[in-house]
């Protein structure tokens, strides 16, 4: 539950080292600079890392194309990369891909926003007040094992086919990811910190706002990354059944007309967008929580 993928740990280490180097810095009244003097060598390290990252995908695409050229498999079932690229280009030009993408993204944004404003406060209260957690726990632990997809029939009954049902399904999965990480975050706050605040004159409310929330932010970020990940999983399934737009709908539509190239375009779009969103969050976390490097050292 600590994090969705190993990516963040790798990503963080160089920042952590930068922090350690700055510990030895001479005193200055200015905040320590973001980049350190060795940034040139770090830059090339980053470039070679990007190169390694992209090597395997390129290799796979090359082998795939070759296999198709030499008719090693049935290209109706798996069109060559070249055809997928052409299909992607035409979908882009017609605006269809963008339209489906925007619909899916909008649903994910709404679902995660609602999940965020409900799960984070609830998680903070549950993590902070044991009796409240006991009160909520029985109910939530029965709801949690139910896969979001099992809610689809009920969601359609309640909200009908369309936007609301899809948002509801996505919301359920994002909600629990955020809730569990927030509770874990509150639990892991060093017990001395609220105590220190109390002996400095803080009220119980101050402790929540000044101590618990900022100390839990790294876990909330992790929760958000996981929530976005599971959002894509459930939104596609929800759109397959309960919507007439979105990337999930697009994939299922082109299955019916047997256009495997366009199915692949939909799948790869999800992969790329999901990856970009996760990187974006990691970047944002680094910017918003520079002190967090401590935890990685």
């Amino acid at each position, binding site marked *: 539950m600590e994090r969705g993928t190993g990516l963040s740990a790798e990503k963080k280490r160089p920042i952590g080292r930068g922090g350690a180097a700055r510990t030895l810095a001479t005193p200055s009244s200015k*905040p*320590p600079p973001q980049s350190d003097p060795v940034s040139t060598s770090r830059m090339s390290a980053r470039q070679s890392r990007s190169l390694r990252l992209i090597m395997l995908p390129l290799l796979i695409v090359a082998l795939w194309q070759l296999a198709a050229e030499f008719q090693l498999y049935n290209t109706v079932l798996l069109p060559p990369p070249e055809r997928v690229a052409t299909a992607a280009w035409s979908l882009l030009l017609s605006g269809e891909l963008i339209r489906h993408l925007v619909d899916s993204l909008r649903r994910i944004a709404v679902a995660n926003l609602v999940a965020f404003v409900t799960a984070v406060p609830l998680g903070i209260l549950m993590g902070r007040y044991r009796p409240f957690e006991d009160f909520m726990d029985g109910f939530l632990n029965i709801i949690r094992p139910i896969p979001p997809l099992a809610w689809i029939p009920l969601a359609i009954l309640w909200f009908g086919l369309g936007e609301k049902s899809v948002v509801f399904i996505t919301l359920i999965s994002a909600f629990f990811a955020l809730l569990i990480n927030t509770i874990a975050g509150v639990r892991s706050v060093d017990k001395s*910190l609220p*105590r220190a605040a109390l002996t400095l004159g803080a009220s119980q409310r101050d402790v929540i706002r000044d101590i618990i929330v900022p100390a839990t932010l790294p876990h909330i970020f992790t929760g958000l990354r996981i929530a976005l990940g599971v959002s894509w999983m459930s939104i596609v399934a929800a759109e397959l059944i309960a919507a007439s737009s979105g990337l999930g709908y697009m994939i299922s539509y082109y299955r019916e007309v047997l256009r495997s190239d366009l199915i692949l375009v939909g799948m790869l779009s999800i992969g790329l967008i999901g990856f970009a969103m996760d990187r974006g969050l990691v970047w944002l976390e680094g910017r918003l929580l*520079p002190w967090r490097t401590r935890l990685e050292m």
Partner: protein
Amino acid sequence: MTPKLEISAVTKDYAPLRGGLAVRALDNVAFSVSEGEFVSLLGPSGCGKSTLLMLIAGFERTSRGHISVDGREVTAPGADRGLVFQDYALFPWKSLIENVMYGPLKRGLPRRTCEEIARRYIDLVGISGFENHYPHQLSGGMRQRCALARSVANDPAVLLMDEPLAAIDALTRNTLQEEILRVCDARDGRPRKTVIYVTHSIDEAVFLSDRIVLMSPRPGRVFDIIDVDLPSPRTDATRQHPEFHALTKRIWESLKIYAKPE
């Protein structure tokens, strides 16, 4: 004159865990501390010295007996009892100056005043120049200096210190002992700080204290209170003073029966 801090017949029991017996952490502990006094609580682990400190801080309630500061009974944590932790407990997302400003801000002082106070105390503990660094960028010694500044800047009636130097390397520790005394001295028209200092180091207790409360374990009891008549200010020379050696020897003699392996 009422004592600054009064501990009268304090007993603390912990509820039994799963069918075991209740644990008595403190048994009928009583002593008082007057304004400006530096009192150490010294004893082997399990003697309840940290428990007593937590009771004074107000994080836990006594099972019997009372604790009062300036005649008011302790019922909850408050800014009149500052606490310095062994693990510093600096807020990692705040820079040093923001850490030190936290208490004054909570008292409702204007931001500019808080900043002035914070700068003055950061300077006093010798870490000026690092105001805008984050705690993780500093050594343990510097973090503890900052934590000390944060507590003292808030001008508590009583300053509680829970083994603040236990995690500090030995060379830095001696310097920091003198620093603690200097920082707690009278200044700006305010009297010398009243300090309750928990430690398990005999040398440290003798070097710092006006009085030492010796405690024995299971249940925690006060078995002796020792006056330390060493000249002030305490300096490196203090550590060579015959009285210093006499006292450390005497305290060791009375504590060593608890140092046996069990």
